[in-house]
């Protein structure tokens, strides 16, 4: 199935999901039917979409050729194009948006470790598979509790969301945690944040089995990679099916696999593959339906969002106050340290900070995902709160502090009793603003496998093949959290104003 990511280069995905919703809405307005094959032949190019940000061995940038790509899927695309009498052209596209981009017509086919799942099969035309992979279960060396699929009940297991493995884990009652990268689940397994990882054997071999503290429990299922074609372009699919079969029969397909060390006995099935097999594989188009069960999951996810936001703010506010006071009243070193903190945390992406905190410092600081989310967002937002409070303190006339000092109050007492309460009034609108921003920014913690509201929405949307209802539900829940907060803050402001 899916695509290796390098963690340092992975960009935030939240807004892309929103974009995907828009793209889908537009795509729904008019589908160009007719023949994809003709178009490809006329152009003389088979444009195939994939993500070169992934690593070995799927598609990756070619170090020897600027702008070029290499990988077993690159060779496959070249061979397929040759069979169709055209040439292949790679189109770079963010992996998680391959299908929306295919819908929109950015390329003719998506070919990049796309697993055949019922949800995807309902949205695109899949060719016959070109690769069969094993779902490989891995655990820590010393952990004898994990023996097979059934032993995963109640355990924390990392995998990719919207995969067969995900459904499999939910069926056996495991606590499935969604990852988008391929390194992170294994790091978390080593660190004890996960009990097991269930991923494609290609990924496991390269990113899991290289870690000495982990062991292979076994292969507990299999999956298939196939090429996605736009709905309505049955002729293109038929041509690709035929070409794939020719490549498999001639031995060229397995020769490619061998060159990239992804060949094994199971791939013989790709050679013997029949149309009946394809029918059987694609027969299951069952879709999850939005029901009360999903609604409960949404509410739970909203609870996680609220919990993370409130706790992060509870970290950010006192720390922000301290930073503001350190900057304004501390001696040279303290004041400069505070300024440095603010500039550093404001000036770098919070996503990067979360990664560093959770994965970068994993060796020294063992935080679970929820704590890391709270601490990461809290530390980041403290920088913003510090600035809000600094502005608040500076808005309090100096005479207020002098009056307090002249009554014999030590500086700290004067700040606590006289300056800060007045600064808080000034800061309140800014703090409210930041809190609402934090509610939404908390969706970033999904990169460290926390299922909060936005993540829940994307998982469900793919499962039920519709963005509309999950998207609306998600938006409604965010509003239901932020609007009362805004109202409360306005009331508080009005009260302070009168006071």
């Amino acid at each position, binding site marked *: 199935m899916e695509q290796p990511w390098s963690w340092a280069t992975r960009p935030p995905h939240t807004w892309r999901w929103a974009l995907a919703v828009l793209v889908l809405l537009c795509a729904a307005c008019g589908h160009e039917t007719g023949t994809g094959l003709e178009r490809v032949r006329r152009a003389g190019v088979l444009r195939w979409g994939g993500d070169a940000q992934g690593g070995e061995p799927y598609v990756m940038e070619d170090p020897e050729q600027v702008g070029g790509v290499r990988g077993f899927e690159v060779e496959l695309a070249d061979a397929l194009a040759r069979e169709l009498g055209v040439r292949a052209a790679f189109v770079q596209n963010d992996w998680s948006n391959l299908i929306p981009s295919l819908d929109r017509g950015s390329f003719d086919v998506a070919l990049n470790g796309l697993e055949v799942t019922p949800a995807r099969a309902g949205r695109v035309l899949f060719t016959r598979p070109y690769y069969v992979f094993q779902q490989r279960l891995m655990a820590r060396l010393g952990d004898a509790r994990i023996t097979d699929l059934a032993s995963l009940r109640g355990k924390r297991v990392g995998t990719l969301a919207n995969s067969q493995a995900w459904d499999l884990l939910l069926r056996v009652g495991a606590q499935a945690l969604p990852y988008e990268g391929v390194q992170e689940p294994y790091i978390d397994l080593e660190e004890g944040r996960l009990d097991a990882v269930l991923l494609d054997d290609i990924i496991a071999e390269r990113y899991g089995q290289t870690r000495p503290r982990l062991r292979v429990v076994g292969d507990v299922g299999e999956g298939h990679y196939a090429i996605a074609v736009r709905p309505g372009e049955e002729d293109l699919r038929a041509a690709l099916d035929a070409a794939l079969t020719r490549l498999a029969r001639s031995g060229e397909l397995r020769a490619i696999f061998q060159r990239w060390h992804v060949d094994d006995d199971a791939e013989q099935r790709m050679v013997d593959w029949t149309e009946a097999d394809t029918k059987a594989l694609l027969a299951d188009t069952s879709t999850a339906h939005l029901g009360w069960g999903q609604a409960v999951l949404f509410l739970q996810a909203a609870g996680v969002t609220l919990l993370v936001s409130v706790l992060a703010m509870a970290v950010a506010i006192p720390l922000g106050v301290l930073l503001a006071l350190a900057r304004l009243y501390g001696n040279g070193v303290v004041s400069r340290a505070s300024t440095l903190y603010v500039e550093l945390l404001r000036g770098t992406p919070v996503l990067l900070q979360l990664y560093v905190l959770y994965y970068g410092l994993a060796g020294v600081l063992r935080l679970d995902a929820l704590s890391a989310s709270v601490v990461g967002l809290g530390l980041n937002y403290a920088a913003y709160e510090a600035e809000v409070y600094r502005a608040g303190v500076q808005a309090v006339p100096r005479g207020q502090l002098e009056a307090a000092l*002249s009554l014999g109050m030590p500086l700290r007492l004067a700040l606590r*009793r006289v300056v800060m309460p007045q600064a808080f009034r000034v800061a309140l609108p800014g703090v409210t603003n930041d809190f609402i921003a934090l509610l939404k920014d908390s969706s970033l913690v999904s990169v460290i496998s926390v299922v909060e509201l936005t993540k829940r929405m994307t998982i469900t949307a793919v499962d039920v093949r519709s963005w509309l209802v999950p998207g609306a539900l998600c938006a409604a829940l965010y509003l239901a959290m932020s609007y009362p907060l805004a109202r409360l803050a306005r009331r508080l402001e009005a009260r302070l104003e009168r006071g």
Partner: protein
Amino acid sequence: MIDVKELRKRYDGQAVLDGVSATFARGEVVALVGPSGGGKSTFLRCLNGLESFDAGSVRVGGDTLGPGCGRSQGAVLGRIRQRVGFVFQQWHLFAHRTALGNVIEAPVFVRGLGVREATERGRALLARVGLSHRESAYPAALSGGEQQRVAIARALAMDPEVLLLDEPTSALDPERVGELVDLLAGLRAEGLTMVAVTHEMRFARELASRVLVLHGGRVIEEGVPDEVLTRPNHARTRAFLGLDRSARG
């Protein structure tokens, strides 16, 4: 009570206090007069450590403040400020506290007085300045004269031995000046030491036992009000008091 020796302070190379020495005895009421920019406010603020200085010393009772604002002076500052009250020209009442809240804040949080006792005493002080009926008003809702009286009550709540006042009459109409003089005369009768910066000669005459004239960062003249204010020796004092003009006129 207060002993000031050779106080010097510069702002941007400009000497604001150029070697000021003065002694204020217990129970004495001293008026500080002089032309605008002569350093009166700066001098007053040095007396309770709101302003640091470059050279000289300020001794209050047994505590001595030296130049700079070193950390080691923190304890000294605390003790001095509890003995020396300050009434600002702009009063600076705590904007988020009621009149009564302003008065009891320091007794409760600096002295550790119980809230009930502090409230009782605070009410008595507000009654004394004639503001019993305004105890739960916030500063924004008080007139200038009322704010000033709350500020005085707030300073008195710490039982200071010395009260410093910066231009207490500047925002008052003549009737209110009369009331203030009465109030301060009562405090003088109780033995409170007071140092007031003022431009109001009637105020100086009626209250002060001594007048200091500050000009260009120096004390250029001092003496009893009648002497200094009617027959000043120094030309600058005469000019400042407008006596030259009336002499010519």
